[in-house]
């Protein structure tokens, strides 16, 4: 089996992006077909990762190692375990959809648009498979650049504000993390190898300080309450593709960071600070759920719903049982599909009406029946209806939480009501009822390209909802190993 697959997953989209940029927006057809080919090829090279993944092993697979900066003992070290492999697939899959979604609606500087998304796809694959902390950090920060441009160049009226807020908020977190990484480098005797860091013994005080530094970095990215305020702005102003990538992949980076850094490096601090993390997560789940209820802008509503759903993920991590962690991981992937689909649906309507206000719609089902059916389906998934992927993760986390403490589980379970309330109420106001106004009357139903994009996502959501075994099976051994590791004190 080839062991260059991970490198391919990172660099193929990036070099492809340069080819797309070189082709230029003037040769539009050639350029976007090239972008699509690159995206599809990028997805195809990740498939052997799943097929060839040894499910019985907890350790890293497809490992690649080469010296990068020998002077500082920094390596180009890649590898995936059951926790990260699925995100690479998810990321590459979403990139294909984003390229398709931007096919006609982006009219200005389309080559740069496609290029930015492809570069970002490669960088994010890099984040998920980097096992050297510096390599991780470099990908982690570099991925801010394309997103900043995507929001700022192709975004809405307040895009400049949103782009700056996004960039500076995230940079704040990652700079503190940089100091933490340097500290760990010195504490581990001059190594940036993540797996070695997992074994480094640390006193409680440094553990807590490190945990806090990582918390700032990853909490901003997740985002957790109270550092979530950049997300609604970024989502509302970003173009559809940007919102999709932001919700489907970028938010996962923060949660992934918790699993890869915080938990295994500072297990005692994680246990010690778990009540804090659980509290913050529950606030996100419940309070942000209420905030979502009163939104009048669809994108904002889905953005808040994302924060609420991500609260579930962090909750799952910090109750330290198999159900919780696996549920959180399933929830992350499911949320990738569902939130991506929700933003795509809103994008479909926005392209036609140039409005995201719920009040401007009404009775869309009369003019766009196919679309309304899909929209309703994704809304159901977003509110956690059984047989959709949204249900599996939430149910697992709630079960895990009840095992941990009944009242925590109870509070978490309110999301089933809140989620259904805000999502379905929005669908009711947008899609059902009589045709609201003349604009809605003139709407045309989705074309085959949009149908393809949404249909693929619908299939994924349904498959994961009915038969989640292929997903949980992959992560089982690694999660088990992680929990065992976290249970052992490093003091």
């Amino acid at each position, binding site marked *: 089996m080839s062991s260059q697959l991970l490198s391919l997953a990172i660099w193929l989209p990036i070099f492809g992006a340069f080819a797309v940029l070189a082709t230029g927006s003037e040769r539009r057809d050639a350029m976007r077909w090239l972008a699509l080919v690159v995206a599809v090829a990028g997805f195809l090279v990740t498939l052997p990762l799943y097929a060839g993944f040894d499910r019985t092993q907890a350790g890293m697979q497809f490992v690649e190692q080469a010296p990068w900066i020998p002077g500082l003992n920094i390596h180009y070290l890649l590898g995936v375990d059951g926790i990260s492999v699925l995100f690479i697939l998810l990321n590459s899959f979403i990139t294909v959809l984003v390229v398709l979604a931007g096919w006609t609606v982006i009219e200005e500087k389309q080559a740069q648009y496609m290029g930015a998304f492809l570069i970002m796809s490669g960088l994010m694959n890099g984040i998920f498979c980097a096992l050297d902390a*510096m390599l991780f950090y470099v990908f982690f920060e*570099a991925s801010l650049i394309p997103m900043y441009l995507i929001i700022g160049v192709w975004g809405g009226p307040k895009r400049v504000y949103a782009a700056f807020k996004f960039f500076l908020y995230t940079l704040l977190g990652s700079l503190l993390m940089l100091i933490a990484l*340097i500290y760990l480098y010195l504490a581990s005797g001059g190594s940036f190898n993540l797996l070695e860091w997992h074994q480094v013994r640390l006193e409680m005080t440094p553990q807590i300080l490190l945990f806090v530094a990582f918390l700032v970095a990853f909490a901003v990215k997740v985002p957790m309450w109270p550092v979530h305020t950049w997300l609604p702005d970024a989502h509302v102003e970003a173009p559809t593709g940007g919102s999709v990538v932001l919700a489907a992949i970028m938010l996962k980076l923060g949660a992934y960071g918790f699993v890869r850094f915080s938990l295994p490096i500072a297990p005692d601090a994680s246990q010690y600070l778990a009540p804090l993390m659980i509290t913050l997560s529950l606030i996100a789940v419940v309070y942000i759920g209420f905030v979502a209820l009163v939104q009048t802008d669809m994108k904002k509503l889905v953005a808040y719903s994302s924060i609420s759903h991500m609260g579930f993920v962090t909750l799952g991590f910090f109750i330290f049982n198999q159900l919780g962690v696996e549920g959180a991981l399933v929830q992350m992937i499911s949320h990738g599909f569902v939130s991506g689909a929700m933003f795509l649906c809103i994008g479909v309507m926005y392209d036609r009406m140039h409005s995201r206000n719920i009040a401007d719609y009404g009775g869309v089902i009369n003019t766009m029946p196919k679309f309304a059916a899909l929209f309703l389906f994704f809304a159901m998934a977003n509110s956690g209806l059984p047989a959709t992927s949204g249900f599996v993760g939430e149910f697992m986390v709630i079960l895990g939480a009840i095992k941990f403490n009944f009242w925590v589980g109870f509070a978490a379970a309110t999301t089933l009501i809140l989620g259904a309330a805000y999502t379905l109420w929005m669908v009711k106001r947008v899609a059902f009822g009589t045709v609201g106004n003349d604009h809605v009357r003139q709407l045309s139903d989705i074309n085959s390209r949009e149908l393809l994009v949404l249909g693929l996502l619908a299939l994924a959501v349904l498959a994961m909802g009915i038969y989640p075994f292929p997903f949980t099976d992959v992560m089982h051994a690694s999660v088990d190993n992680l929990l065992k590791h976290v249970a052992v004190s490093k003091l």
Partner: protein
Amino acid sequence: MLANFVVPDLYPAAPELFLALMICVILLVDLFLGQAQRWITALLTVTTLLGCAAITYNTMDGQSVLTFSDMFIDDLLADFLKLMLYVSVIAVLVYSRDYLKARGLDRGEYYVLLLCATLGMMVMISAAHLLSVYIGLELLSLSLYALVAIDRDSPRATEAAMKYFVLGALASGLLLYGMSMIYGATATLQIGGIAQAIVAGSANKTVLVFGLVFLVSGIAFKLGAVPFHMWIPDVYHGAPTAITLFIGSAPKIAAFAMALRLLVYGLFPLAHHWQVMLMIMAVLSIGLGNLAAIAQTNIKRMLAYSAISHMGFMLLALMSGIVGGDPSYMIPAYSAAMYYVVAYVLMSLGSFGMVLLLSRAGYEAENLEDFKGLNRRSPWFAAVMMVLMFSMAGIPFFIGFFAKFSVLLMAVNAGYIVVAVIAVMFSLVGAFYYLRVVKLMYFDAPTDAAPIVAPLDMRVLLSANGIAVALFGIFPQAIMSLCAYALVRSM
């Protein structure tokens, strides 16, 4: 009388002697050239620098040789820094030619003064004696004063030159005063001798520390560190952009060499004194530089304040070499500082080069607004500028990131975690104004649709500059190990 005269070994100073000779030749040749043949002077100047580079490269043997009665040292550090110097002066010549021609400043004096300044910097780099430090510094400074005022009819440039001259003279006075005190305490002007005298304990500590304070002030003035930074914004702003480009690049190398020669080679036994001074200046420079840069609307002023903050970062590494009397981290710390300077010079050359690229006859593109919509006027050069700005902000994958990283690594290693956290927080502030430039180029519509015209050599070199900033960011090892190797062989 002549019986006592020993002909010194001229071989180690061959590049300096060649340059001095060529300065005379160019001065004479230029007298016979009209404005139309000025290109001959320019060509001769570049050839001279290439000749110096060839001599330096071919006489580089890795040995530290003292000559001229131990006043002049030729070691690998000097050779390396001189080669960097030639590269940056050649870049300055290429970037400024069109600008100067369009303003009638393309005169023989410019080339001669530029070479005199270069000679001064070379002497500073190779100084092994307080007198040669001073002679080199004055040769550089006097040439710079004249260069700033080269546009005789511009009141702003004249004012800047006056200010520079008055403050520069004051700083030279401080430096001389400090030198005289150190001479009083140690009875020698030879840098190595000073260190021996202090170690031997024969020097008066009080006088020595007094002298040190004045010396550090003089160095800080040359570097432009707070609180000796006042001249930087005014001179950068007032001088013709081509001259700003020069002041903002090569002299930083010389100032770094001066700091290294005086503080490390000469006064390392007093490290615990000057390291504290450097720390205060570093924190103040990083703080003030970044905060003040936000308020600027003129890009030259903005880059001036950014220069202040960058020099502050460099000082962070310079102060981390000797940890509690333990000199074992000297090499990595000083090579981090050196790497920072090299990286900064590359970025600074590129950024001012971009300002020159946008300027035309009768039009100074020195306001931030002039960068508006550059992405639509020239996507390639917008990308180059974006790379430079992100690099200055310290975002990977660019050279500025690894420069910042290695400096922070050494600071944390020396136990200055709080200082490192302050530094990264201010570089978060700094990210804002670099991002603003990217925002202007990418998010805003152009106000000026004029196509960008520049000679081919400038386009090529500026592109190469941008690519170098990106490439050395992806492969930072090359320059890092060169810096470390040069220091190992010279200490």
